[in-house]
């Protein structure tokens, strides 16, 4: 099986879906001849032409709104927001419109679309090329929020997202675009939206994470394994709708939970996982539900030492695991 990077797997998913279904098209800034600033659509404009890989004006609101309209009129748009930090102008179109179309029309109008955006820090992106925005959207019924942590899942989940009859936000951990490699089968397969996945079996405690933090959590688990701490790692993969069953089953087994996310701590996605565990997993818990996340400051600073201070890392996760294991 060929090994691919995360970004290659994403490109492969888009390519295969465009080949499979002529209703699928890509729209976003610089997605055309340039192939996207991260090269997610590299070669697709040349392959499929200007009417399926559409360089949009520099206007995020309309990238999403055009997608909504095209979805209503029979297409399956993949809208690219160049950086998650720039999704905010489209917030109204996503949250008030795409998310609510099906419910507000009494189940008549659905909006099959994907909104892709690279997110996350650690790439010297400063305040406005590093944000994690998933919690804003995971809060909204009607939206599906998916974050892959590895190439295999990225390809399978993105294909599932493109085929889903609902709006799906597909956030890609950009620091992992070229860093994270893995085996990706040729041809068609799906990773269903919804289920989380136990990616490392363990008995002492569970680390819940997604995206880049999941990649780090696996590394941290290996570090502490040498010290005799047996860590289970769960890749959440789909943030909305959340897979409570996998979350609760894992803590039922291990009794302890650490949730890692790179967003700001307060009201980040990990807060919901903690609430689920407090409310429905109370009987299983042998220790406090712990969170490791970015500090509550308005962004990831640019300067390398400050950036490192902000970002969770394998070492910081390992340290948090040790603290929780000692409890």
């Amino acid at each position, binding site marked *: 099986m060929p090994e691919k990077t995360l970004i290659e797997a994403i490109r492969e998913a888009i390519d295969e879906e465009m080949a499979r279904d002529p209703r699928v098209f890509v729209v976003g800034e610089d997605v055309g001849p340039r192939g996207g600033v991260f090269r997610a659509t590299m070669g697709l404009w040349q392959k499929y032409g200007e*009417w399926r890989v559409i360089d949009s004006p520099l206007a995020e609101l*309309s990238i999403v709104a*055009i997608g909504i*309209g095209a979805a209503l009129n*029979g297409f399956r748009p993949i809208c690219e927001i160049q950086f998650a930090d720039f999704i905010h102008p489209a917030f109204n179109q996503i949250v008030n419109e795409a998310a609510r179309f099906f*419910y*507000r029309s*009494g189940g008549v109008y659905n909006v099959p679309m994907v909104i892709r955006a690279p997110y996350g820090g650690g790439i010297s992106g400063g305040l406005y090329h590093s944000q994690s925005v998933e919690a804003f959207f995971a809060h909204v019924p009607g939206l*599906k929020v998916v974050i892959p942590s590895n190439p295999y899942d990225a390809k399978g989940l993105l294909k599932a997202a493109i085929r889903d009859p*609902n709006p799906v936000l597909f956030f890609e951990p950009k620091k992992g675009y070229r860093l994270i490699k893995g085996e990706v089968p040729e041809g068609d397969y799906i990773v269903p939206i919804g289920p989380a996945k136990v990616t490392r079996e363990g008995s002492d405690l569970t680390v819940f994470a997604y995206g880049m933090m999941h990649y780090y959590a696996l590394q941290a688990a290996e570090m502490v394994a040498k010290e005799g701490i047996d860590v289970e790692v769960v890749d959440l993969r789909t943030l909305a709708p959340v897979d409570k069953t996998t979350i609760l089953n894992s803590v039922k087994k291990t009794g302890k939970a650490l949730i890692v996310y790179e967003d700001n701590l307060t009201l980040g996605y990990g807060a919901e996982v903690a609430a689920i565990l407090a409310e429905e997993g109370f009987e299983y818990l042998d220790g406090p539900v712990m969170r490791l996340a970015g500090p509550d400051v308005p962004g990831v600073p640019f300067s390398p030492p400050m950036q490192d201070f902000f970002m969770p890392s394998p070492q910081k996760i390992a340290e948090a695991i040790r603290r929780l294991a000692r409890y």
Partner: protein
Amino acid sequence: MAVEVKEFLPITQRHEDLGLSDETVLRMYYHLLLSRRLDERCWVLQRQGRVPFHISGIAHEGIGVGAAYALRKGFDIVHPYYRDLALSIALGMKPVEFMLALYGKKGDPHSAARQMPSHFSLCHLNIISGSSPVATQLPQAAGIAFAEILKQKLRPQLEAAGFRVSREMRVVLTSTGEGSTSEGDFHEALNWAGIYRLPLVVLVHNNQYAISVPVWKQMAVKRVADRAAAYGIHGAVADGGNVLEVYQVVKEAVDRARAGEGATLIEAVTYRWTPHSSDDDDRTYRTREEVEQGKLRDPLPRLRDYLYRRGLLTQREEDELEERVRAEVDEAQRQAEEAPYPAPEEALAPVFATEDRSGWWGE
């Protein structure tokens, strides 16, 4: 007020010159009247405490009816706004379909009683569900129109995959108020419309007020339509109280759009002499004299006067029509009042679709 009006302006167009038959112009009048009487009844029901809320389309009927008749019904796509009661009626919405939404009753076809009334959504009439944040429908309508372009451009691939693409483009008509033209959505929509020569008609109902804010605080330009040039699209102004003029201007825009000549921004000028909604009190922001003057734009007496002048309507026929409309409104109200409320737990679904329902493919 943008234009001083001293008395009812007579309609100067002749319907036959616009390609409209006697029967059609009479039907336009019927739709105007039905919309007006239904609207007036909704005000009464709200004031009686029978329904919680009404937002009116009074003074906008000339725009809605004129526009509806310029479209290819059942083919073209409409993404309206909350003043489009008459547009929806003229496209085929039944009074009871509005009343069910007004009462929040089971069977409301627009939103299954989830949305406030006047959020028109009728799939069988190609009326797209709208929301309450203003102007959001404009870039979506641009997207619907953009898909029409894509269908033509991608015809071979689509047809090879089994999707039937109609020979002609559907035209998308979206409407909004002049206040909404200050929103970013408006500008982004028109920008796309210009770049891609979209088969789109953006119909702005300039009723002089965004709740309480007058148009001169909304924009520095004299005419909404003047903005079209900045996006490289056509601009046109119509007297919103003259249903034939609205028809004429919208029809030209629709024909242009279908022919691939791009989008048009139409400003239809009217005056909203009702409060913004049943929750508003317009005495706090304008004089009664001004309101009385605004009523001179009323599309209903102007069309009635035209029909009398042209010998198409007599007093007896008008009385009969009023009777018929009253009976229709009575019956719609009766059905809505008798309809049950949805079960409370119906609030829980449907949040997510399990199958794809979207899209107009083929004829």
